[in-house]
């Protein structure tokens, strides 16, 4: 009688098909790929993966990406925490306008900012550093983190703050010792979304780097255009980019959905 499982199953199948295509291709040799379609790899090979793990231009791409993503997540969440507290607890001059202004930055198309960002970060001599990309991604990640954290904080009754102040806690001591542990789940969700958007963004990351901080995504696009059609290698590199995301999802799976559910617009 209950046929509800059919739709999610079909949906997940649809999601997995392109990933399956990518994975099988990563285990094929270039000759086999260009030779025609096959559902399973005929000559199973790990050469594509071996190349990525031994060639520094490839594996450095992953390291670079992870470095700026982590820096960005740390900056975004740590400056967003006090700001979200202010928005959720106090009324102050221009608070609503400020909140909306923050959100408008989430709406700015990165393509609009690519060239000015290049000039700005060249001018302050941060071009081609991990820090440049991490700072640039703050443009859309800080508003998002403030938005999510504000939602979580509004769910905590104000009596908690008042009791702590009566007990003689100073603001910062209360904030660090009591408040932050209370909203740990919210911080996890905010960090997840910052990680996600910084990890998947390419346009700004590519514009702001050339050699030393080149992200994996840029290495891939440049390989695709220069060395002809090494599809197997490209597929292997692509498959590897899925792993960090999958690990992060696994850890926050119970909180992902809540992140936006509690946030308010």
């Amino acid at each position: 009688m209950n046929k509800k499982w059919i739709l999610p199953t079909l949906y997940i199948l649809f999601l997995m098909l392109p990933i399956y295509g990518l994975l099988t291709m990563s285990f094929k040799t270039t000759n086999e790929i260009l030779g025609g379609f096959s559902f399973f790899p005929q000559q199973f090979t790990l050469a594509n993966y071996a190349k990525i793990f031994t060639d520094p231009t490839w594996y450095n791409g992953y390291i670079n990406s992870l470095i700026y993503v982590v820096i960005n997540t740390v900056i975004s969440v740590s400056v967003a925490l006090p700001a979200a507290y202010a928005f959720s607890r106090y009324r102050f001059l221009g608070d609503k306008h400020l909140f909306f202004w923050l959100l408008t930055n989430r709406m700015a198309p990165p393509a609009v900012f690519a060239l000015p960002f290049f000039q700005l970060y060249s001018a302050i001599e941060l071009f081609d550093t991990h820090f440049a990309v991490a700072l640039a991604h703050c443009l859309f990640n800080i508003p998002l983190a403030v938005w999510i954290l504000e939602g979580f904080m509004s769910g905590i009754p104000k009596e908690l703050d008042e009791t702590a102040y009566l007990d003689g806690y100073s603001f910062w001591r209360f904030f660090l010792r009591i408040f932050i542990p209370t909203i740990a789940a919210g911080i996890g969700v905010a960090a997840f979304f910052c990680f996600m958007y910084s990890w998947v963004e390419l346009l700004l990351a590519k514009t702001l780097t050339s050699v030393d901080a080149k992200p994996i995504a840029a290495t891939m696009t440049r390989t695709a255009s220069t060395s002809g059609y090494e599809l197997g290698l490209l597929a292997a590199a692509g498959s590897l980019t899925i792993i960090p995301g999958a690990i992060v999802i696994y850890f926050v799976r119970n909180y992902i959905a809540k992140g936006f559910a509690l946030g308010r617009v």
Partner: protein
Amino acid sequence: MRKSTNQKAWWLVAPVLLLVAFNAFIPLMTVVNYSLQETFGNNVFFWEGVTWFEQVLRSERFHASLMRQLLFTSMILAIEVPLGIAVALSMPRKGPWVSVCLVLMALPLLIPWNVVGAMWNIFALPDIGLLGYSLNSMGFDYNFTQQPVSAWMTTVVMDVWHWTSLIVLLCYAGLCSIPDAYYQAARIDGASGWAVFRYIQLPKMKRVLTIAILLRFMDSFMIYTEPFVLTGGGPGNTTTFLSIDLVKIALGQFDLGPAAAMSLIYFLVVLLICWVFYTLMMRNEAQ
């Protein structure tokens, strides 16, 4: 929540303000600067006034990409929203399958955008890709690098693949917040499935759904990397959306003036639509 007035709260907001303003104001002012001037290189600029704005607003090329962008955004919203709601409604609420569903569904959201493009490019290649090969062997004439319709369909399906999960996750979160008692009451009253959806589930999902639609609108309106990697804007100009067109003008032809003017118009269009949506939503919430 009752809030107390406290102007010192500005100090808590200051770091955010500084960082975002640094990233937003300076580049925005650069764009405004370019949009009003003409340059022949060497940092020599001439005042041009609103010439570029007039030129962009009159250009057929801009109209065409704006139309394509609007069509694309409405198409993906029309598919993703109902599909997302339907999947969220039929997902299990308890048991071991919940985690499996959530993890697998969230996977596309965390794949770098150029990898999504490359993955679909590989998937859809007519002779060696899984999708392209299957469609062709079933007798469809499919080649997304040459046929505009195929290219469009592939781009839309790719976006559905990529982002429907976001709507599913948000709606699912909304649905999980409905207490069991509501459903029991509905059963006692003999409510039909449609009535349960219309009067219990939909109202509970309304808030997360508006957030989902807003996010999907913003992101799809700014879409660049995925279609750029998948089709490169082609065949011809058929999948050249606003961002792709903008980057072509700014970095390809280095026409800074028109590109800057177009950027500002583009940004204003996004802001205007979001503002209308935001105000409508706030009014709804106040009622």
